[in-house]
């Protein structure tokens, strides 16, 4: 019997696939739909202290090998979002509350609220590439990241994962700061800062001009980051970036990811992507003579 169960510290997932933050996870109905579709966990849209409308459209561009988005962290604010969590808690899989803030105090405030609402873990958005004063702007500083993680760890009991940006030469330093501050894991990677220009209108298409690239185009970057992080860290890594198929999932696991997040693939594969990846993983493990996911985590490091 093949087990797809995986563990992130004391958080147990029935399978390694999670719905990534910002993808269909703004409302309880969508969270429940993802859970019913076989996701092992669901990460909420990133939530802040107050409501944000986000940027005007266009907020998304579809490209051949991926997508560029600049949603602008739209969210109803932590108070209003309580309703969505409350309506989602019975969905049968852990809900991970994603939060964004401008400093450690605000992060701690949001984290405590999420914990009160009943989420199973927190994901800190330290990596959104297109929101002024948030995300990547603070997530590229090992010092600030360390302060934020350490403050939150003092205030909440649930596991805390930090979502990292690839838009830095200090990926490892930032990740180490998370680990040293007591963080329970890192999520890598968020989108890659990008732009697309309309040659007809002679201007960037996104209203915010810059956005974050996701989808198959960034998978090799994600794999490289996870591989590097695996060598540097003891805490678990949640791999994300361009996963569409079970083969992509296996690649991330072999690079060193203990769990996976799936986002943009929902466009092409629908929510069926979770079951299809899990079925593929089971078949692959069986064929290769493994009995559990953790047996292939990081195996790509053993041969060199």
């Amino acid at each position, binding site marked *: 019997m093949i087990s797809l169960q995986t563990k992130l510290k004391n958080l147990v997932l029935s399978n390694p696939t999670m719905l990534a933050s910002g993808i269909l996870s*703004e409302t309880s109905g*969508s969270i429940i739909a993802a859970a019913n579709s076989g996701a092992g966990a669901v990460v909420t849209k990133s939530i802040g202290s107050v409501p944000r409308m986000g940027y005007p*459209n266009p907020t998304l561009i579809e490209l051949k090998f991926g997508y560029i988005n600049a949603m602008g962290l739209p969210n109803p604010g932590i108070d209003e979002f309580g309703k969505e969590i409350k309506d989602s808690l019975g969905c049968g899989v852990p809900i991970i509350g994603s939060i964004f803030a401008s400093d450690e105090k605000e992060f701690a405030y949001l984290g405590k609220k999420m914990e009160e609402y009943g989420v199973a873990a927190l994901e800190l958005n330290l990596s959104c590439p297109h929101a002024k004063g948030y995300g990547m702007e603070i997530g590229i500083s090992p010092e600030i990241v360390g302060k934020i993680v350490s403050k939150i760890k003092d205030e909440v009991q649930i596991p805390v994962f930090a979502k990292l940006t690839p838009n830095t030469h200090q990926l490892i330093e930032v990740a180490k700061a998370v680990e040293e501050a007591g963080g329970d894991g890192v999520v890598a990677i968020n989108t890659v800062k990008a732009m697309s220009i309309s040659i007809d209108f002679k201007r960037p298409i996104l209203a915010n001009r810059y956005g974050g690239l996701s989808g198959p185009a960034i998978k090799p970057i994600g794999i490289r980051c996870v591989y590097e992080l695996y060598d540097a860290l003891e805490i678990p890594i949640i791999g994300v970036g361009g996963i569409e198929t079970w083969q992509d999932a296996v690649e991330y696991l072999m690079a060193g990811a203990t769990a996976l997040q799936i986002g943009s693939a929902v466009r092409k594969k629908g929510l069926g992507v979770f079951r299809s990846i899990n079925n593929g993983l089971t078949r692959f493990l069986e064929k290769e003579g493994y009995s559990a996911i953790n047996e292939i985590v990081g195996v790509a490091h053993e041969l060199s």
Partner: protein
Amino acid sequence: MSYHRAVTIEEVIAEADGVKTLRFSLRRKCLPGQFLMIWIPGIDEIPMSLSYIENPKGITVKEVGEATRALCSLRPGDRLGVRGPYGRGFSVSNGNVLCVGGGNGIATLLPAAEALKRELVDFVIGAKTETELVFVKRAKKCSNHVVISTDDGTKGFKGTAVELAAEMMDNKKYDAVLACGPEPMLIQLFNLCKKYNVDCQFSLERFMKCGIGICGSCAINGKRVCIEGPVFSRNELESLVEFGKFRRDASGARITF
């Protein structure tokens, strides 16, 4: 897969007070009830159902905000960005069909009605007042029976399109009701369809961002208006408990109808 494309406006038709149709050519196959994401550079990008699905294709715009005002100010020769078509439209099959269009909603229904046999289609066109009525002539071309309601009685029946639809359903057995209009109208019409046990397909509207099913901003009980919709069947509508109750703003906060 549908990337951004620029189209040139070939014709602008004034349909009624503050309502214009923009016609342009786009070599992509579009189905009745599908929509395009329309980009007005520097202003906004909004979903618009197609009011004409053959070339020159068309969208019919009512001025309600900044983006629609900008669209209505465009002239032949001006350009627009488009992506799409997106969404699941009407699935039309023959049988007696009642089309109920509230306000600008009629524009979305016409391509579906035009795909049906003329003698099978009846129309209820509702508007606040006579000067806001659109596409009456076009409806008459694809239907033998077109009735009109206005809230103020300036044209046709004084009252709502739903009241008029109730009368029609009393007198005739329909196989399907197709509708598009304000959601408070649609929920009443939905209850009517249940009462008369008639199948229905309604085109719904929600605040939309990505248009391709990943951001979740247009979700109703987890069903994405941009993918599973915008047209929903009776069984689907039955399962959407948010239908007729609340929509969401750009932040995702609930707003009661």
